[in-house]
């Protein structure tokens, strides 16, 4: 069974950027899409965007347009999510997940990466 393995927790200052990685434990990702979501402490789930692994195209949630970039490195079996201009409200657990449809659902989930934004 293929697992999604995310990078370690990060602590960043306001205004900085963070880049979170999501690697497939198998030879490659088995699904067509990798999604990125986040969950602030005590809050619900929020969709950030998705990467289409077949066409190599990303698209993003309106809330994050202009601040988030999702890319991949095929040789490393890894998808990255970079969020810029961090503020304290960006403190959250960031999840990658995968599935075969653009509209979801997220079948498989990474373990989550905690990003803390603090001065």
């Amino acid at each position, binding site marked *: 069974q293929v697992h999604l393995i995310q990078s370690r927790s990060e602590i960043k200052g306001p205004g900085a950027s963070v880049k979170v990685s999501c690697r497939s434990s198998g030879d490659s990702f088995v699904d067509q899409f990798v999604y990125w979501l986040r969950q602030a402490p005590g809050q619900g*789930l929020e969709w950030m*965007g998705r990467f289409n692994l077949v066409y190599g195209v990303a698209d993003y*949630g309106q809330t994050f347009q202009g601040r988030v970039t999702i890319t991949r490195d095929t040789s490393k079996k890894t998808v990255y999510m970079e969020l810029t201009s961090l503020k304290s409200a960006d403190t959250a657990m960031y*999840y990658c997940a995968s599935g075969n449809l653009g*509209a*979801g659902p*997220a079948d498989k*989930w990474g373990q989550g990466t905690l990003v803390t934004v603090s001065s």
Partner: protein
Amino acid sequence: QSVLTQPPSVSGAPGQRITISCTGNSSNIGAGYTVHWYQQLPGTTPKLLISGDSHRPSGVPDRFSASRSGTSASLAITGLQAEDETDYYCQSYDSRLRGWVFGGGTKLSVL
């Protein structure tokens, strides 16, 4: 403010049946986009519970079922068990926002 509306909490006694509603509008559920449900145990990663309105992934007990009608969907849990006490989220796609939308989550308490 979540695009999909769920009750913040529901409760039921062991063995009982409960439902959790998820209300959207004409650009998401009402537009025909399917609804998915996730279960999130405390301190853990969300888990897909129901996909495509009513499909249970392998390993999900048949005590869990879901349906969609009009601009709403609902999750039903029969034969409530203590282990069901956790948070549940609905998710769909929104054509106006061009992205996924979630309900705010419902905390289920098993009394």
